[in-house]
């Protein structure tokens, strides 16, 4: 019992919260970027532009089928060969964006497919160009249908940032490791704190999504 009280000293809690903040920061940035990139990739794959869609589709499949850890390594250790030396946090955001946008691309593509064909035809008949129809008519409907799938992907993203501890991203998981690494009595309190903090963030997001989903429906 005493180890619990000691483990949750203000100093340790503050350190954990600093880690949580990095987790949230990295997640929010990656969610926004991968949503934009993923939509773009999903549309390209759906639209069937000659050659381009096939090549983009193949690259998406390659990345989707690799472990995220490898993508993290390639971004952090591989990109500098290109003359681009990201620090740990930008490198993680980049790796998460690359990986998650390919996952989102598939969700978004099937979301667009689920919108009835008549919608596109109707919009085109009313004089909109293909891209106008896509962005103004099709996508908004597709997104609305995809909310649950999108959100569960975002939750995966938040959880997956913990893998970046392997390149020493100072996130929630890493900060907990540092604390219990220095005192083994803190290990159970730290795991409990990890579980609670991740749960609050991830579950909170899914509750929020359900609420929005219901409002829109």
């Amino acid at each position, binding site marked *: 019992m005493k180890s619990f009280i000691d483990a949750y000293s203000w100093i340790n809690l503050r350190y954990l919260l600093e880690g949580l903040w990095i987790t949230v920061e990295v997640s929010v940035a990656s969610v926004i970027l991968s949503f934009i990139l993923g939509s773009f990739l999903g549309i390209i794959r759906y639209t069937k532009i000659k*050659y381009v869609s096939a*090549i983009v589709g193949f690259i998406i499949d390659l990345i989707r089928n690799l472990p995220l850890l490898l993508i993290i390594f390639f971004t952090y*250790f591989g990109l*500098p060969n290109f003359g681009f030396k990201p620090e740990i946090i930008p490198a993680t955001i980049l790796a998460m964006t690359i990986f998650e946008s390919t996952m989102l691309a598939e969700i978004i593509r099937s979301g667009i497919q689920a919108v009835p064909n008549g919608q596109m035809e109707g919009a085109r008949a009313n004089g909109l160009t293909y891209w106008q129809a896509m962005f103004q008519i099709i996508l908004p409907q597709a997104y609305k249908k995809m909310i649950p799938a999108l959100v569960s992907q975002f939750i995966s993203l938040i959880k997956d940032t913990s893998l970046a501890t392997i390149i020493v991203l100072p996130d929630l998981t890493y900060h907990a*490791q540092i604390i219990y690494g*220095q005192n083994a009595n803190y290990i159970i309190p730290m795991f409990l704190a990890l579980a609670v903090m991740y749960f609050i963030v991830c579950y909170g997001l899914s509750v929020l999504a359900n609420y929005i989903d219901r409002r829109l429906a």
Partner: protein
Amino acid sequence: MKKQFRLATLLVALGALMLTLSGCGKSLSQQDVLQNDRKANTITWGVKADTKLFGLMDVRDNQIKGFDVDMAKHITRHILGKKGKAKFIQVTSQSRIPLLKNGNIDAIIATMTITPQREKVVSFSNSYFDAGQSLLVPNGSKIKNVSDLNKSGTTVLGVVGANSVQNIKKFAPKARVLELQDYAQALTSLKAGQGVALTTDNGILYGMAVQNPGFKVVGGTFTREPYGVAVNKGQKPFTNEVNKAIKEMEADGEYNQLIKKWFGNVPGFNYKELER
């Protein structure tokens, strides 16, 4: 026309991607690090953050503290002058060489032993610390030295990318070696009974023993592990400056002060032997 252009860009991007991934890209470390650092008035060091006495994150103020970190600060001051800044990036035994080769860091000062294999890929300064490999075991353990580990069925813990892991495979070939991500994870694994002993350099182990009264260092040292500052190949001017700085520190007693500061109060450890 437009479509063809888009296709061409894509193919170029794809080719470039393949090039990076296959590692054909040109190394960045062609520029003179010393000149760049003088211009920026900053040296970027790769240090450990999970290793007591050498580089350990202090939870209270989010600063990394230890002998390696202090050495880096002093060397920086010797090279760049009093206003020179030392920037620290956390590395693990696994990530330090790729980060150096990529140019994310200018130099590694992270409990890194000078070995012939490593000298093929990086250059080392003269040794700045004399460590030797040893063993950490729980109090009451039957293991007295490295030969006790050489039995099938014994599991020894180490860290990915550490020289000590290669050594133990030579000294106790029958033992199974588990390589964890960093020292914090390895130590927690020892506490969880995932192995009978944790092996690495004595300095690091004494640091762990200080923090964890249930554990002790046994078996003396069975290898010599001189630590060096690692820099990229072809950075002779920078290496020379580091060597000069180490020599100056030894001459004016700064070095011994740091040894005393970090190792003076470690039980079972004779810091006088380390003084230069």
